[in-house]
Structure formats: structure tokens, C-alpha cells
């Protein structure tokens, strides 16, 4: 049974509701985007360099940089505001000393360059220390300016702005393994961009019907395959997954493969379609599996088997009898994310009441954990929680009717190599770390 112990537990308070969380490829940087359009980047401290086995104070994440990525905007044609909320952040693979990330709101994607400066030139001939121009008569000799170390400064600059590519709301961005292109998906279309070209993009999927009145299905998420640069997957509000091969045709309206689970007639209700809508899709690190999240379950799909998932895990089946209330208060439309661990052996997703769930694929068992910090215990083992659904009631069990539906864990990320997870709970960011097993299991 997979256990995550948190000997190290950091929590940060962010000013606004966090809307996305993402580690970079090494896991040293963690970026969060929020509803106010700001991005906060955390960096992992590496104090004990060269002693990777040392279990010391190293490995804590501290705020590295903060910047305003998107501002509120206005669409004059439709007389509608465009929210500055950051929907997704994706890091580019690192190629030099600087780090690059893509951040997007509903309409515009931006490429940001994050670079450090820890030296500055000193000893100019024509300027003094404060930058004022010297009186030239006081200059009696020439010298070469020298680079001197200075306090670390992190500079973040926008390098590209990919605008006007989307009529509908962007829900996903995904960087291609080719390192040159990325895709952005909105409700009805998916575009492919080149990272260096901002004035045009290539439309690769378009499911907009000729008559909008015939619209019954939208795109909910999309992602490139981690290794095959021609493959990508997108999910829909009807619970289908479509794998597309860009070598087959320029416009990938026709899928290569469609993954769909036949409906269970025994569980049919008016809400069947809504709860089958896929809110997130992620390729496994191996590229062999897909992980999807719908309202009540997470499912693992094998790319070689289209007729149904290979594994299904119940996240909060006890909500099935409450669907009407959840429809009324709109909770049924909440979009939960799902993530793989580094070895694809554990999957994780969020729930309500600040709970999140982890499933061990080898044993098939799941555990419920709570993203919450007890003030008296800054470092403690994450408590296992339980929702009471019948049978013997244990101490600490939470009743279904006591669940707080405003405390939803929608966004989360898992470190690419280690057992470190970042959980966003409204304005709180929690970072849990498994110190007992610092390496992968």
C-alpha cells in the first residue's frame, strides 16, 4: 500500500484563488497561476549540493519570482470582459540558463522568460556609481568595466504573445516533444503554434458545427504525446477521448482512435452525460496510458485498447445520490485535474472538503488525504481521512452531508522525479514531501 509521509510540509498563502499548478521538468521550479492573472514561481533550495542522500533542511520551496502575467481585457466586439485568470501554465524544456514557461488565460497565450542576474558591471568610464554622467574633465584614465557579484535578481520578461488565436475559452496548452511547437485548445478548436511565430497558428481540430444550434459536444482538454510528436489526445464533454495523428491529415477532425466506455444502463439518469464529461486528460510518463477524470471517477486507459478503460477508481461514489443538489449548486460542473506520479504507479486527484485521493495502481487501493495544516504541527504525517458511507463509523469519519463543497481541490501537480506533491486549495498552496522515501518507490 502506497504511503506518503510528510515529514516536510510547507504551505504558502497566495493572494488570489490558485487556478493552476505546474512543476518544471526537473522539479526545481514550481509555478502557480491565480485568478488575478499573477504567476508565482517557487524554487527548491539545494543547500546540500552533492550530497543527495542527506536528509537535511534542503529541499524546501521558497518564492523565487512573482509577476503579473495577464491583465483583465475587454472584447469590444462582443461587449464582454476577458478574465485575467490563468487557466494553465506549462514549462518548456530547459535549453540554457534561462527558464521559459507558457501561461494562458481564456484568449491569449504568453511565453515568459525567467532569468537570473547575479552579477553587474562596475567601473564605467563615463558614468559614476549611481549612473550619472561624469564630468568628462574628471576622467583621467581608462579602465575596463568588471563584472562584480550582486544580489540575485530574477527577471521575468514576456518574449512572445500568441493572441487572437481563439474565439472560445482556452482550456489547455501542451508543449510538444519536438521542442518547437505547442498546442492550445479551446471549447471547439485546437491550434498548433510554433514557439517563434506569433502571427499565425495552424488549426488542427475544429468541431464547431455549421449551425451552432446543433452543438452538443465541446472539447474539454488536450495534450501532446510525451514522446511521439505527431500524436495528441483530446477529451470531450461526452466522455470520449480522441487520439489524433497529425501525419494522417492536416485537419485532424477525424481521429485515429476513439476511446469510449459504453454507458452503464443500470446507472442511467438525467445526469449521466454531465458526470461522464472528462475534465482532465494526461498521458502517462511512459506514453502508454492515458489518465482521465470525470465527475465521480478517474480512469486509466491503454492506448492499445479503445473499448474501455483498463482501470477505474471511484473518487467519491457517495455523491452519486446527491447529483441533483450538485447540479443545482453547479458543483457538478467542477473540473478536477488528475496527475501521475513519476513512475506511473500512483495516480492522484482532488475532491471536496479539501480532500484529495491517491490510488495505488498495483494494489488498486485508494486513500483519502486532507490538504490542511494543523498550526501546532508544522511537520506531520498526512492524515488519512474517510467519508462515512455506512457500516461502522470510526472516529474522524466525515459524513457526506458535512462535506464542504466550497473547499475543492481542483489543481495539483506531482514532482517529475520525486514524491513531492503540490496541492492548490483555493488560495493556499500545500507542498507535501515524502522524506522517508526520498527516491521513487
Amino acid at each position: 500500500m502506497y504511503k506518503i509521509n510528510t515529514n516536510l510540509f510547507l504551505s504558502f498563502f497566495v493572494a488570489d484563488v490558485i487556478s493552476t499548478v505546474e512543476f518544471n521538468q526537473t522539479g526545481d521550479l514550481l509555478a502557480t497561476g491565480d485568478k488575478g492573472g499573477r504567476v508565482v514561481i517557487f524554487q527548491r533550495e539545494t543547500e546540500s549540493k552533492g550530497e543527495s542522500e542527506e536528509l537535511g533542511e534542503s529541499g524546501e520551496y521558497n518564492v523565487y519570482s512573482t509577476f503579473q502575467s495577464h491583465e483583465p481585457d475587454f472584447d469590444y466586439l462582443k461587449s464582454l470582459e476577458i478574465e485575467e485568470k490563468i487557466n494553465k501554465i506549462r514549462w518548456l524544456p530547459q535549453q540554457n540558463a534561462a527558464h521559459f514557461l507558457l501561461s494562458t488565460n481564456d484568449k491569449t497565450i504568453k511565453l515568459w522568460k525567467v532569468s537570473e542576474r547575479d552579477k553587474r558591471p562596475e567601473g564605467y568610464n563615463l558614468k559614476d556609481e549611481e549612473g550619472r554622467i561624469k564630468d568628462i574633465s574628471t576622467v583621467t584614465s581608462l579602465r575596463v568595466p568588471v563584472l562584480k557579484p550582486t544580489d540575485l535578481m530574477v527577471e521575468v520578461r514576456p518574449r512572445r504573445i500568441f493572441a487572437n488565436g481563439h474565439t472560445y475559452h482556452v482550456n489547455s496548452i501542451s508543449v510538444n516533444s519536438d521542442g518547437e511547437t505547442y498546442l492550445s485548445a479551446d471549447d471547439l478548436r485546437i491550434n498548433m503554434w510554433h514557439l517563434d511565430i506569433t502571427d499565425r497558428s495552424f488549426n488542427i481540430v475544429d468541431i464547431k458545427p455549421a449551425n451552432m444550434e446543433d452543438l452538443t459536444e465541446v472539447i474539454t482538454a488536450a495534450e501532446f504525446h510525451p514522446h511521439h510528436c505527431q500524436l495528441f489526445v483530446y477529451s470531450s464533454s461526452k466522455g470520449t477521448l480522441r487520439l489524433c495523428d497529425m501525419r494522417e491529415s492536416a485537419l485532424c477532425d477525424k481521429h485515429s482512435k476513439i476511446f469510449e466506455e459504453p454507458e452503464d444502463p443500470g446507472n442511467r439518469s438525467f445526469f449521466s452525460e454531465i458526470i461522464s464529461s472528462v475534465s482532465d486528460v494526461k498521458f502517462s510518463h511512459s506514453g502508454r496510458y492515458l489518465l482521465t477524470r470525470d465527475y465521480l471517477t478517474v480512469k486509466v486507459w491503454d492506448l492499445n485498447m479503445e473499448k474501455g478503460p483498463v482501470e477505474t477508481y471511484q473518487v467519491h461514489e457517495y455523491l452519486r445520490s446527491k447529483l441533483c443538489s450538485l447540479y443545482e449548486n453547479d458543483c457538478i460542473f467542477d473540473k478536477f485535474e488528475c496527475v501521475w506520479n513519476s513512475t506511473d504507479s500512483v495516480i492522484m486527484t482532488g475532491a471536496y472538503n479539501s480532500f484529495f485521493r491517491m490510488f495505488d495502481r498495483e494494489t488498486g487501493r485508494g486513500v483519502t488525504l486532507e490538504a490542511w495544516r494543523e498550526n501546532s504541527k508544522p511537520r506531520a504525517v498526512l492524515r488519512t481521512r474517510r467519508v462515512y458511507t455506512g457500516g461502522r463509523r470510526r472516529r474522524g469519519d466525515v459524513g457526506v452531508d458535512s462535506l464542504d463543497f466550497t473547499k475543492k481541490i481542483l489543481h495539483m501537480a506531482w514532482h517529475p522525479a520525486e514524491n513531492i506533491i503540490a496541492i492548490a486549495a483555493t488560495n493556499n498552496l500545500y507542498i507535501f514531501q515524502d522524506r522517508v522515501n526520498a527516491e521513487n518507490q
Partner: protein
Amino acid sequence: MFSKGTKRKFSDGDEEISDESLVGARVASSYSLQRQSLLDMSLIKLQLCHMLVEPNLCRSVLIANTVRQIQEEMTHDGSWHMVTEAFCGPGQSPSERLVATEVLCRSREQDAEPKLFSVISYEGCREEEVVADETLCSVSVSDTVSNVCLAGRIGQCWEKSELSGVERDEEALEDSRLGSGEDEEIDTEDGASTESPKTTGQVFGTFEIKNSSPAPDSALEELFSDVDTSYYDLDTMLTGMQSAPKMGPYDILDSLAPSHSSPSIVSTPKCRSDLNELDHIMEIIVGS
């Protein structure tokens, strides 16, 4: 949405019905009632679009699909058809009804910017006033009808698949607004209003004023303030049900008559009911 303590009785009138079928009929009517409530709730959800930010398309599509599903089931049951049949003359052909209703919903002021609430056209909803205004305003011919009946759109949606031939006519008559024609419901409301046009006109006249000055929030708050938690029984009913039980003749009346002074009147032809009911509803909305 259900006000407290006004659970309606199943009136079986003159017939003698056995206990079993009585229970069955009660269950059926309860189901249809709650299905109706789900329909009403869905339609309200679709209307409460934010003015400032574009509404979530995924959510709108899912809600619209749910509405379609309910309507399909109601059609399948015959309850939808019976609802509309009850109001129009049985001799009318669908196309005639559609044409007639389209005329009703044409805006009097052609130059007025169409304040659309098109459900099916997802091109961005505009916020509309109190839900009740929609239905009732759309009935009157003489008053401003820039607002199109929301229910009409939904009805029109599923209708499209059945009456594809009629579509051509509708679209020919269409004005600049999105979507097309209406369904039988508007016609029925028109039928009701012709009985006492003057009074109806007066009633809707005040709605016109209400419509022009946007102050929806407080009115909506008032309307929804007495939501009863017993409403949550819908969960067990609707999620547990697999198929709609066969409906008896009285079930139609149950779903037809206004349940209470609730704002859930978008989809059923409330105009058929007493003007007293309308006055009552109006009082709530206007807050007098």
C-alpha cells in the same frame, strides 16, 4: 422552489383506482413533477448568464443537452405532446403553429437591439431580467417582444429534428435574431390571451416597464429566497429512476398547473391559468 406545505394531492375524482395503481400513479406524478422541476431549473441556469464575462460554453452545452433529454423523454411519454395539444386546436398542423408563434415573437421595434437569450445559440448570452418576464412578455403581440421565449427555443430545438421540412418556412420568416421560430407553446399562450386581451395586455404592460430598467438581481433574490430544502428529494427521485413510469391522464394536469408561485414558469404555458395566478405572480415580481 417548492414553497412549504403545498404538496398537491393526487385527485382521482370519480374513478375507483386500486391501491397499487394509486401508489404507482403517485410515484409517476411525483416523478414527472420533479422532472419538470429539473427542466425548470435547467432553463433558469441557462438564463442566468453573466453579462460581463462570456458564459462557460461547456456548462451551457451540458445543461442544454439535459434539457433536450428531458424533453425527449416527455415527448416519448406523450406528456409533452399532450401539454401542447391541450392548448392548440388538434387540427392545426405543426407548421402552422410555428408560423403563428414566430409572428408573435417578432420584435415590435425592429431597430431595437435584440436582447437575446438564445439557449441553443451559444454565441454569448446576455443577461436578462426576471425569468418570468420572458415567458409572459413573449405572449403579447402588442407589447415589446424583443425577448424571445426561452422555452420556445428549447422546444424548437428538438422540434427541428422532427419537422425538418418546416424549418425552411421558419427561416424564411426569421428576422435578424439568432435561432428561429417558436413552438406550440407561444401559440397556446396567444390563444389564452385572445380570450381577454385587454386584461392580459395590462398585465404584460407592466412587465414592459420592468423589462426596460434592469434591476434583476433583487427580484431574483426574492423569488428564490424561499427555496425549500425538501426540494433535494429530487436527488433520490431523479438519479434513481431509470425510465419514466407510464403517466396517467391526471399527471398531465399536475405538470401543467402552476405548482405555486414559483418562478419556474418558463416552460409550461402558465398563461392558461387564471389571471389571478398571474396577478399573484406579478405581485411577487414587482414586489408590490
